């Protein structure tokens, strides 16, 4: 099966998005990386509304918590509330180390919680770990016809 992975990065900080791209590239990820900058856009993207009518359903979402308009936890809750969307694995990727944020994320159904590393080496090794685990080791939920090309 010739599949192109789709990764959605939800983060309002272009520098962070860029680091994710760099890190994933360095980790030899060859799929697509798309990004949105706030919670409303994230939901529109996932629900294919407005500008995102033609958006592909992502295989993995990397979700920051501190987002404008609707915060990451609200986005997470919305994803995990829908019968289709809930299948998409969500990696919460936040600089918050508050136990409140961590446990709330898991309560809402986050697939894992990763603290944003403070230096480049750790950041890149985290990206490598994500690539290895989600895109090489794990079996992702089967997609509908739409993404099969």
């Amino acid at each position: 099966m010739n599949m192109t992975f789709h990764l959605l990065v939800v983060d309002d900080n272009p520098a962070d998005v860029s680091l994710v791209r760099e890190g994933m590239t360095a980790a030899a990820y060859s799929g697509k990386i798309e990004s949105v900058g706030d919670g409303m856009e994230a939901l529109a993207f996932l629900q294919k509304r407005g500008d995102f009518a033609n958006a592909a359903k992502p295989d993995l979402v990397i979700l920051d918590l501190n987002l404008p308009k609707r915060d990451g936890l609200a986005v997470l809750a919305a994803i995990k509330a829908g019968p289709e969307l809930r299948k998409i694995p969500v990696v919460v990727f936040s600089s918050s180390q508050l136990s409140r944020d961590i446990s709330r994320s898991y309560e809402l159904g986050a697939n894992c919680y990763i603290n944003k590393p403070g230096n480049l080496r750790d950041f890149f090794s985290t990206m490598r770990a994500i690539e290895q685990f989600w895109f090489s080791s794990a079996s992702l939920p089967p997609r509908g016809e739409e993404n099969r090309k």
Partner: protein
Amino acid sequence: MKSAASCAVKAVVKAKSDGSSLSPGKPSGETAEQMLVAQAERNLADQKFALDQHSIVATTDVQGTITYVNDKFCEISKYPREELLGQNHRIINSGHHPTEFFQEMYREIANGKVWHGEICNRAKDGSLYWVDTTIVPLLNSDGKPRQYIAIRTDISERKRAEEARSYLAAVVQSSEDAIVAKTLSGVITAWNPGAAKLYGYSSDEAVGRPMRMLIPDERANEEVDILARIRRGESVNHFDTVRLRKDGTRVDVSVGISPVKDARGIIIGASNIARDISQRKQAEAKLAAQAEELSRQAEELARSNADLEQFAYVASHDLQEPLRMVTAYTQLLAERYKNKLDESADKFIGYAQDGAIRMQVLIQDLLAFSRVGRKEDAISTVDCGAVMEEVKQLLSSAIAESNAVISYRELPKVEAVHTQMVQLFQNLLGNAIKFRGKDTPRILVDATRKNGQWLFTVKDNGIGIAPEYAENIFVIFQRLHARAEYPGNGIGLAICKKIVERYGGKIWVESQSGAGSAFRFTVPVRASQKTEAAHA
């Protein structure tokens, strides 16, 4: 009249000197004249008897030599008769009266006038007594005194009562307190100078007017209640209230009122004692204001401390975000463009990287410091021995690297947040290893109980600290050594201090440069006992 009396007295004296009876029987065959004389003598004797029952009687000659004293005289003067007769009357002079007093008296009686006055005399035992005295000169036919007869009444009791009364009056007059007497209907009957001073009314202005004039309208009931209680015979204990002065100003007073009874025990009025307590009230108000100010300041301080902690937390947390970008991208620059730009560029990127990393550590330290004050963790009973084992585990690589020998003696259990006790010991032991000397580091931890506190000591044989820096080292970001020599940000001891002070303890260091250090801190025992009692 006078000559008749002198004849009679002469007769009595004669009769007495004859040794004959004062009330002789009636001899038979006496003449009418004899009978009259006898009758007169009897009357005279009876009168003398009656006089002796009531009065102190003495006679002297014109020189003042005592020629006669009755029993009462002996009784009051406490002299036996034989010690008085023939003596000058001065024998009982008390010295109370000035010489002029007696000169005046003698002038009067020497001129044949009757003298009347009150005299203080001295008894044989030295005690004083007062007598109301009448001295009657008995005159010769030429009108000159031939002797004096003194008739006296003991007035010592009355004099004592008078003295007591005047003493009491003087006390009332000189009292700083306002002492006022009033009738049962509240009319002022007496007013001392203290009252005049306190209320501003003179005695003349106040006496006869109602006590009510001193009482502010809103306290009018006070006087009604007071008078009702006084009528029932009750006293009103001193209470703080407010009274009106003549000029309309108010004065804080403490007032006590007692019923006044007459000799028969009937309540006839009340005594009212008031003291100016405006100074005390002012002092109280000042104290209360100070206390309020203090508690306001304490509140403000607590609030500003909380604000500061919140600020430090938020700032350090929010600072981390952009800093993460700086760190990551300078590293990315370094990795991707090393040796592709010129030498200076590589150096600049290196400086930027170092700065960013150092800043990151500082922020993390600040975050750790500000977290100490946050009430997120629960206090429990912490076994310091177990904490030591945990800390030795955490420091295992530093211990292995330095061959440090860490020992501790029986450590107590304290009421604290477990992670904070770990941090406290970890920082202190970590420092002891870090600032080691040339010898193998030896660190001893012990605790003793003293004055309701546990005194912990962490003693090392390291490089020590010069006494002049003993205070500085507990201040956040204060360092004594160059970074290259001993790495670190100067946060460890600041955190230790904050932890110890959170539990109401103190931390200090006893050290000499080059002679090792003993870090000591206290943890109140009280807290743990209280908690144990609460659990029981």
